[in-house]
């Protein structure tokens, strides 16, 4: 005979304000198997918990029912209390008489009290049938997968690797580095971006605990926390990276017809079909882009080479010039690439961002080559950019590249390009905008100031205007940076630009508004820089689906709780960080990356994870092998196995999440969901149907 103790919480006023506790107590005292009934102001407090623990220790009760708030937040607290007092924690049941009773029926105290009685009676009915269960433990694989090799992915990997965890760092591009590699300098210190990033890139690539897998994407993910099976698809490089030294000889011989916009230079220049993404690329290896390759030697990948009259094979210029024989067209094209399978215990998503394309914003004459995005401006002023950092109007970049080619070939050539006198920055292009993205992209105010400062310090005669709606510079040393910019003579105007119209000779007429003067203003500018919105990378929604996590309305990955769990997701074992979670600058991305790494470490370090035993179990004697349960399981946790020549269902304990769908669907009632058995649930239903008369 079970000895049930019922503990009723006032929850301050939250429950007692609508439910008549005394009346409920009198009712509960009369329920079968109830030996003790107590009430208290806050049952979850220390003294409240002591009441329960005392009764257990004295042997008065061996089943506990707490009538209080929601089990979602408080069940673990009371379970622990039972355990600490020496009672199996699964001999505990909770009745929610707050969210589902007092709060819902605040204005009808009589009915609220009645309902409370019935809810507690149902809990008692179930408590009489509770089984003692033991927590189970699953082994955790201690490897971690980091998706994305930008600054966030790099720091997450380094922290984990230094702590002794094996990390797989998967990156979509041929090189790690992400968007930070494209920056010239970083605010507010104006550090050279490549100078601070490259050592980290090298460190992570050389770390014994890190396996770098670049030019690859995540194909599929199966399993759950502690045991993920990830398939990664590696794209073909057409260059043997084991032999390639990154000398770059092949870059110069790729024929001029095989040119496509250079992704690293944000389309301001072109790259060949064979390329190394940028000079500090890690790994520094060449890659052939088959969509750009024109097969100049007349030989597609995998075909037999054409031969001279003497039978010698005609090789492509890139094959000929390669000193190590790494570049070879013998390998046929396989769009499927190579699949690599990884076993990991946790996954960190750090896929970063991209900036919106200027072509979306028709009111700013985006067809003009002198209207550019801020990231393009960053490339323009970079020493590794299309003009080696020489500031010229972008419309003259083709002239510059032509001149450069002539000079490299040793020809005489005069450089006639126009230098800008006026540069205008436009904020909030696509951000804070109902037509595109309602969020603020957070980093643009600072990076416009940064670009303006770099330009003004280098070319004091430049006339620079920045049009802000609001100036947002809240970070450490940020507002001081803003003041420095004002003192330098950079013209700060509060008012959004409504239109940019093209003038002859590729200048631009900027139509803005000066809120301080209360007047529309206009100016003629040589370059207009649009601070376009930051967006998540295009395939993020797809990737999220594969990982079982979700994206918010604006496309960024959704964290478990906006305030308290910014790097966790609702899927255990999957963490997020950096701009994939939302727009942010480098220090915040690094902080989140370290947080995600730390969370992953906390999860995996023990090597085992405690999991509730509230999972399904198949009574194979009752199972008929019909197989209805198998496709119903959302976690793929149930399968048919061979038992003495017959098919019987079996639950994979590691995968089962205890949702109960199989138990409900089984026509033979062969499946039990521990903690919610047929008998327990039916007892609750019958009790409620009989208005609180406890039934078995």
């Amino acid at each position, binding site marked *: 005979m079970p000895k049930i103790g019922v503990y009723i919480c006032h929850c301050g006023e939250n429950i007692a304000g609508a439910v008549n506790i005394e009346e409920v107590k009198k009712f509960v005292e009369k329920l079968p198997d109830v030996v003790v009934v107590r009430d208290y102001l806050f049952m979850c407090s220390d003294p409240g918990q002591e009441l329960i623990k005392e009764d257990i220790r004295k042997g008065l009760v061996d089943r506990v029912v707490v009538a209080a708030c929601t089990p979602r937040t408080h069940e673990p607290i009371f379970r622990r209390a039972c355990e600490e007092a020496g009672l199996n924690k699964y001999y505990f049941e909770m009745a929610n008489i707050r969210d589902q009773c007092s709060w819902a029926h605040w204005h009808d105290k009589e009915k609220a009290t009645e309902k409370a009685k019935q809810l507690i009676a149902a809990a008692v009915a179930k408590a009489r049938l509770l089984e003692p269960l033991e927590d189970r433990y699953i082994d955790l694989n201690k490897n971690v997968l980091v998706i994305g090799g930008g600054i966030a992915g790099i720091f997450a990997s380094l922290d984990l690797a230094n702590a002794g965890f094996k990390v797989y760092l998967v990156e979509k591009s041929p090189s790690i580095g992400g968007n930070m590699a494209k920056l010239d300098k970083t605010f507010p210190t104006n550090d050279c971006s490549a100078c601070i990033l490259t050592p980290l890139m090298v460190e992570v690539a050389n770390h014994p605990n890190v396996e770098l897998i670049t030019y690859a994407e995540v194909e599929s993910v199966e399993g759950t926390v502690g045991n993920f099976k990830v398939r990664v698809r590696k794209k073909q490089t057409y260059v043997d990276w084991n032999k390639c030294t990154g000398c770059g000889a092949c870059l110069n011989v790729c024929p001029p017809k095989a040119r496509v916009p250079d992704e690293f230079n944000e389309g301001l220049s072109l790259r060949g079909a064979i390329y190394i993404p940028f000079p500090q690329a890690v790994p520094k290896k060449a890659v052939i882009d088959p969509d750009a390759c024109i097969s100049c030697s007349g030989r597609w990948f995998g075909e037999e080479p054409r031969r001279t009259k003497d039978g010698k094979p005609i090789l492509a210029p890139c094959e000929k010039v390669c000193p190590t024989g790494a570049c070879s067209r013998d390998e046929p094209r396989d769009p499927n690439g190579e699949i690599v399978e990884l076993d990991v215990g946790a996954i960190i998503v750090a896929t970063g961002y991209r900036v919106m394309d200027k072509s979306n914003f*028709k009111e700013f004459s985006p067809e003009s080559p002198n209207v550019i995005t801020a990231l393009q401006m960053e490339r323009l002023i970079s020493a590794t950019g299309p003009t080696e950092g020489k500031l010229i109007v972008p419309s003259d970049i083709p002239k510059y590249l032509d001149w450069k080619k002539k000079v490299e070939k040793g020809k005489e050539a005069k450089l006639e390009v126009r230098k800008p006198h006026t540069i205008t920055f436009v904020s909030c292009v696509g951000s804070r905008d109902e037509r595109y993205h309602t969020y603020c992209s957070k980093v643009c105010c600072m990076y416009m100031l940064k670009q303006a400062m770099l330009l003004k310090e280098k070319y004091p005669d430049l006339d620079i205007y920045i049009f802000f709606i609001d100036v947002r510079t809240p970070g450490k040393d940020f507002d001081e940076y803003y003041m420095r910019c004002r003192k330098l003579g950079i013209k700060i105007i509060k008012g959004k630009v409504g239109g940019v*119209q093209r003038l002859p000779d590729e200048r631009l007429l900027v139509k803005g508004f000066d809120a301080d003067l209360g007047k529309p203003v206009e100016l003629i500018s040589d370059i207009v820089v649009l601070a376009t919105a930051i967006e998540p990378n295009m395939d993020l929604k797809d990737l999220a689906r594969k990982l079982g996590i979700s994206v918010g309305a604006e496309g960024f990955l959704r964290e478990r709780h906006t305030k308290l769990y910014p790097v966790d997701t609702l899927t255990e074992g999957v963490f997020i960080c950096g701009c994939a979670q939302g727009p942010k600058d480098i220090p915040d991305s690094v902080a989140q990356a370290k947080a995600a790494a730390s969370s992953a470490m906390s999860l995996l370090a023990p090597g085992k994870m405690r999991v509730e035993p509230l999972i399904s179990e198949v009574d194979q004697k009752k199972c008929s092998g019909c197989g209805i349960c198998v496709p119903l399981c959302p976690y793929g946790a149930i399968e048919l196995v061979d038992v003495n020549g017959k098919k019987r269902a079996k639950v994979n304990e590691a995968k089962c999440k205890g949702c109960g769908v199989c138990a409900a669907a089984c026509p033979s009632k062969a499946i039990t969901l521990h903690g919610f058995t047929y008998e327990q649930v039916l007892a609750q239903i019958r009790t409620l149907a009989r208005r609180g008369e406890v039934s078995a």
Partner: protein
Amino acid sequence: MKYGLFLGCNISFNRPDVEQAMRKIFPALGVELDDLKGQSCCPTWGTLPSIDIVGWCAVAARNLALGEEKGIDLMTACNSCYGSLNEARHKMLSDPKIMERVNEILSKIGKRYEGRAKCRHVAWVLYKDVGLEKIKESIKYSLDGITIAVQPGCHFLWPSEVYPDKEEDPFNPVVLRELCKALGADAPYYSKLIDCCGMGALRSTDPEKSFILVKEKLQCIKEEIDADLIVTTCSSCLIQLDDAQEQLRKKGEIDFSIPVLHYVQLLAICMGFEPEQVAGICVTPRDEIIGRILEGGKR
């Protein structure tokens, strides 16, 4: 193809040569015109739209219903009418309460509007329905060597969401330029192409201020592309650029003269119709350019 010809007040009374131009060119291009008997003011911006929305929509709906009951759409050469009718239609289609109120009022004259009939612009009918090829074939005189400054006009472009036909880039419109190019002319971009001409309420309220806009526009046209002719798709822009130009000359603020035509008038001339009828009313003289067209470009 049949359309109800919606004239609007300015074309009917001030510039009936534009009306005549349309009555000549469209039948010749295979577009049948219905008189839309009983049409009234669209209603223009200074009247019902300034008083109350339902009243505005009711007057507009009566005009649109004239087409709807015959199963045809309307088309107009006046941007203001184009704007007022389409904005009203958009309001009626977006808010069923407005549509209901409007039909309550229309029932008092035994009419109903369901939202099917729309008002298109003659330029779009020429561009989409008739097509540039057909236009090229139909002209007797071509405009080789003539530079045209186009003035699509604000209501041709904005707000893009209410119009049945939309430019791909409402800040870099190409339809009118293409229509002029189909006649053989050059129709280059100039930086103030989409700027407002200042007609309508602005001019009624303060003519001096509205002339500022005209002067800027004309100076830009003169300096950047030195056009021989200004062509517009809007009867209001036509009157403003034609008439205000003369005022500016009188005041000595400009010293040049660029004739102004509505596109349908230019097309009518190129198709060989009588210039006196299709382009006979103007303030800034047109004889020179018309003469040049008729002499120079015989095909």
